[in-house]
């Protein structure tokens, strides 16, 4: 039982790391039907900028809003350069290539600025584990879970309550109609990209003390997060959290009970099953696309 508790803890911590990144995919999908495939790189940039700030002597907690501002700026840039031109000409796939290209450019820039070695991100909390129902958990892992949930709640509340949120929903439902109703859909989409990269940058500094920080940290995490977004559903914030936890626990449990060589397999099998049975995701709303 103790073993299972420990595996579940680690699975949840790992899953929440995936979920915060996946959340960014969902934000832009909701407004523009597009995804930022450079999400992993936005995360990496946030973590590295955060590391530099901490190195300059900025307090960890003070650094977070600065990193968030940087992330928002970076997201705006991605939307302006990569996504807007594609949306304008109603290209179905142009944004895929351009966000991937921008992601690679960001990675190369980061490699030149920060080098390609993995760096240690100083932990703001004690690094000794605490006991929770008999199993060990790191204070930083609790912070990741709390921080991720808090961030998602904040964005969800903002989307549901504020006038901007209504604009998002309207833009998602019918971009042209929303435009005719006087909603500046272009701005809404730009804003959603800024929000998405901001959440990625925040996720970056949140998880960096647990993972290592470096130019290549986004690649694997971004891909896993993509699987989470598919499993949970790209239209459901709740689904993303549950999808993340499912994938995280599947990984740690498979690693222990079956073999560490196969730990990535069940998550991907689940992904295939979801795609075959419920393409909108476990918790996604099925949208009927009229052609």
């Amino acid at each position, binding site marked *: 039982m103790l073993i299972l508790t420990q*595996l579940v803890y*680690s699975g949840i911590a*790992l899953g929440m790391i995936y979920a915060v990144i996946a959340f960014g995919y969902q934000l832009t999908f909701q407004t523009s039907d597009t995804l930022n495939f450079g999400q992993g790189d936005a995360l990496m940039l946030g973590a590295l900028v955060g590391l530099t700030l901490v190195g300059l002597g900025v307090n960890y907690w003070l650094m977070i809003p600065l990193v968030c501002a940087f992330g928002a700026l970076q997201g705006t840039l991605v939307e302006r350069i990569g996504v807007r031109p594609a949306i304008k000409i109603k290209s179905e796939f142009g944004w895929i290539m351009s966000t991937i290209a921008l992601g690679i450019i960001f990675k190369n820039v980061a490699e030149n600025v920060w080098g390609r070695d993995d760096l240690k991100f100083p932990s703001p909390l004690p*690094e000794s584990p605490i006991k929770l129902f008999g199993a060990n958990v790191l204070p930083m892992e609790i912070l990741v879970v709390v921080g991720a949930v808090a961030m998602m709640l904040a964005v969800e509340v903002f989307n549901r309550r504020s006038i901007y949120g209504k604009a998002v929903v309207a833009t998602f439902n019918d971009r042209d109609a929303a435009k005719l109703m006087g909603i500046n859909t272009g701005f809404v989409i730009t804003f959603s990209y800024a929000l998405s990269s901001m959440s990625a940058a925040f996720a970056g500094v949140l998880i960096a003390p647990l993972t*290592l920080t470096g130019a*290549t940290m986004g690649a694997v*995490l971004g891909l896993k997060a993509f699987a989470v977004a598919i499993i949970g559903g790209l239209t459901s914030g709740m689904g993303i959290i549950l999808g993340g936890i499912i994938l995280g626990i599947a990984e740690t449990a498979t*690693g222990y009970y079956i073999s*560490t060589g196969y*730990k990535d397999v069940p998550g991907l099998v689940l992904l295939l099953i979801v795609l075959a049975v419920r393409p909108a995701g476990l918790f996604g709303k099925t949208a009927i696309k009229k052609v």
Partner: protein
Amino acid sequence: MAIALALVTGLSLAADPIKIGVDGPFTGGSSSMGVSMRDGVRLAVEEINKAGGALGRPIQLVERDDEAKNERGVQIAQELINKEKVVAVVGYINTGVALASERFFQEAKIPVMNNVATGSIVTHQFDDQPENYVFRNAAHDSIQAPMIVEEAITRRGFKRPAILADSTNYGQLGREDLEKALALKGIKPVAIEKFNIKDVDMTAQLLKAKEANADVVLTYGIGPELAQIANGMTKLGWKVPMVGSWTLAMANYIDNAGPGGEGARMPQTFIQEPTTPKRQSFIVSYLKMFNPKNSRIDSPVSAAQGYDSIYLLAAAIKQAGSTEGPKIKAALEDLQAPVEGVVTTYHKPFTKTDHEAITANIPVFGEVKGGKVVYAYPADQQRASVIQVKDVNAKGAMKVEAKKK
């Protein structure tokens, strides 16, 4: 002006440089080894050139970053051979890259001095051919695996080892060697676990080792993931000693694991301690020239072996009196004068059938202590001033089986 011009052309005619290729990962997860190796190489070349070069000609380095990718290594090999026309090449950190690149030099009859990659078969790829152009001055895995087992089982008396190895060529070949070496002692590991490069969570692997009541963890991986293992142990509140391949000395292991990484032990051919005058002058010059953080060489073993590889080559070029590949190779296989290096003094380091300069009696055990690698045993440090020279009869190495074609 005319005189200056004449001088310049005159000089360049008299001193046509000898081009030597340097290949290693200078970026990415293995870069602490690659960059330290390159810096060791640069230091040796500067010293040799200051002293008049080889055959009266300066040595010129052609450095290329293989990014630890096999296909980059292949491209670089072709460029060094066909475009740069190097007379020899030193380097290779990653066993996979070495294996993929070496055949081009073998075909072009250009000697390769492998100074870091440890995979056992690196020098045995061409055993079935009459001439073999691949040499090595690093401690290969057939030496390291038995050393790790000797340390964990015999010296420290552990009975229930768990093996944690990464899923690359390096990790899995090393795991096989470890299992073989354990079998020779009649011990079966209680757990054998795998992890991927960039894995951020080692809970499952460590829990399995813990549940199997492992009393020591034997590792084969590279720095960042090894650090995640140490961090994972801290998290689980389960601490057993780590003994593993020489990569536990990598700066990115030591820095990322922090206090949790202390006490890890690994075989080392060189420890950054001025135990001989040669080593002292090497350390002083290296620190002066490259000024690494906290006066700590990122990977002292790579730096020392990189330095020695150039002196070995220079000695061979001098003896051959030529820069032709076959003549350098013949000279390497029959070096007359001893070569004083940092790791050891090389007396006839290679023969026609033996292309390994390092034998099992040369490496010692290092331990991570206070954020750097020190001698694990004071006795080793005391006798370090007596240079251990190559001994082909040294006990401890496993026989390397030639690659079957």
